[in-house]
């Protein structure tokens, strides 16, 4: 009897181990939000405390305004920037790309943030665009799937449920399960925006983390899903994407995202006024965002640095 009890106890400990693994995976989805909060708190305390060290003595305020998708990037940038320039305060208003561009044109913020390329009339309105990073979204399928490439139009139709079987796009006779992220996720926003399927997607599963999407796709033969390029691994197959029927199929890699040949991607843009120089502080932040140091911050945030 005692033996069996101790065996059972050992079994419990083993399950405890597994519980630990799963726990951390799910915890990481919320960790992003809380670490951002923590970051903004430490910024404030640093601003008062630090003087000396390897910091640059420049003071002022840099106001940025725009894309909500750039929140993670901006949080990373401001945090590291603060270490170098403790006396400069960087503010970030996540209002949306459109508003950011308007505010930059009107001069009510130093740098407008946009997660799409500026339109010609916006450039004509007196703005200069600087791409600081590119956000590539990989379209992934199960490894068993024989389909290797899709056009953007086909992806759109799959997302909206118009194409429901892989045989319609040259694959095996298998129902398609479209797996995506929950409402509010930046990756979902980017995918729906880039494929023009806002509020029109018909999902088979809505999962709360990139890792969960990857796992679901890797265990479901008929699945297709989207994840950010940085979290791509070999448990799933990333499809080659054709911008349209005539163009070549392009693999999703950092290079193809950077040179613009991969279709499902968007730039992260700093919009500044063409005719007026930036303030000293804003110039410092602008330079920092394009520096080599910042490249690591972009990679950490899951996007490809432009430089």
């Amino acid at each position, binding site marked *: 009897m005692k033996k*069996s009890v101790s065996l*059972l106890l050992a079994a419990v400990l083993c399950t405890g181990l597994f*519980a630990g693994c*799963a726990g951390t995976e799910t915890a990481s989805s919320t960790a992003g939000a809380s670490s951002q909060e923590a970051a903004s708190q430490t910024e404030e305390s640093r601003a008062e405390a630090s003087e000396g060290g390897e910091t640059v003595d420049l003071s002022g305020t840099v106001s940025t305004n725009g894309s909500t998708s750039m929140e993670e990037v901006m949080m990373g940038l401001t945090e590291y920037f603060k270490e170098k320039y403790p006396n400069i305060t960087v503010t970030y208003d996540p209002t949306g790309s459109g508003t950011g561009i308007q505010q930059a044109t009107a001069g009510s913020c130093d740098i407008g943030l946009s997660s799409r390329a500026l339109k010609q009339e916006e450039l004509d309105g007196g703005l200069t665009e600087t791409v600081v990073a590119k956000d590539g979204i990989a379209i992934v399928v199960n490894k068993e799937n024989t389909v290797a490439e899709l056009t953007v139009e086909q992806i759109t139709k799959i997302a909206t449920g118009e194409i429901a079987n892989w045989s319609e796009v040259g694959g095996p006779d298998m129902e398609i399960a479209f797996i995506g992220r929950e409402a*509010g996720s930046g990756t979902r926003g980017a995918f729906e925006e880039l494929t023009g399927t806002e509020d029109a997607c018909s999902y*088979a*599963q809505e999962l709360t983390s990139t890792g969960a999407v990857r*796992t*679901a796709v890797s*265990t479901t033969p008929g699945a297709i899903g989207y994840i950010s390029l940085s979290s791509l691994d070999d448990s799933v197959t990333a499809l080659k994407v054709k911008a349209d029927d005539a163009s070549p199929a392009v693999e999703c890699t950092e290079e193809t995202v950077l040179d613009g040949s991969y279709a499902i991607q968007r730039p992260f843009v700093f919009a500044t006024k063409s005719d007026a120089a930036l303030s000293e502080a804003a110039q410092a932040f602008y330079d920092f965002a394009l520096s080599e140091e910042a490249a690591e911050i972009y990679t950490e945030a899951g996007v490809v640095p432009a430089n």
Partner: protein
Amino acid sequence: MKRIPKGEGQTGIAPKTKSIRAAFEKGMNVLFFLCGAVAVLFVLFISVYLIVSGIPAIREIGLADFLFGQVWKSTAKEPQFGILPFILTSVYGTAGAIVVGVPIGFLTAVYLSKAASPKIAAVIRTAVELLSGIPSVVYGLIGMTILVPAIRTAFGLSSGATLLAAIVVLAIMVLPYIISVSETALCAVPKEYEEGSLALGATEMETYFRVSVPAASSGIAAAVVLGVGRAIGEAMAVMMVAGNVANMPSLLESVRFLTTAVASEMSYSAGLQRQALFSIALVLFLFIMMINAVLAILLKKGKKS
């Protein structure tokens, strides 16, 4: 607990120590009261907080649109906040878990308390206790990697993350509660009842099901209600197996429960969407309160009879 009769233990104690003792008693009394008050305060605080933060969104959306709206599109350009799919999913999911879990749990309890040999009963009892100790995320994980693909192949679906998967997981999760509470109720049935029945010539099985079970019925009902409460409040495990799409519930489709509706959108939500999530939490809270009230009534009935 036996009460010490008054006067005993006080004989021969000097008046000084007596007053110190009295002060100590009083002090401890206050301390215990404060500890008790902490629990009450937390409950009050959570209730008030949920009501205060849940009401504004309901007001803005409109109670009927909120409760009976069939479409949930919280981040659309023209957002829609109808939580009927979530309410029905939670109700169906819980009902399913009870339909599957109660017969198994109830029969196990009868077997454990009446028919099983002590050795076998001890093994099963330990297993049941372990089952209740497994964290819900583990149920979710195993459901996700084994149950979901199995349902997919069994029914020829494109994705196995369905209401059915959630029901199976929930049924297993409520088992230990149903078994241990109904077993306790069955064990509490006076031996004389059963002996009387056997003496009158009833077989063992007749005795268990015609005498013991009716005598323990309120306890068994309490076990079922406890299982309902457990199933309706579960979030983690169902989030991992149900697919989380805000469909109207159907057995082989991806669905979203009240709990997972809150959990899956909380991290990125803002404005009215966030307020609406609090309102969902309020609805869930009211459901649980109702279940607790039913449980309290059942237990009271059990004591009276």
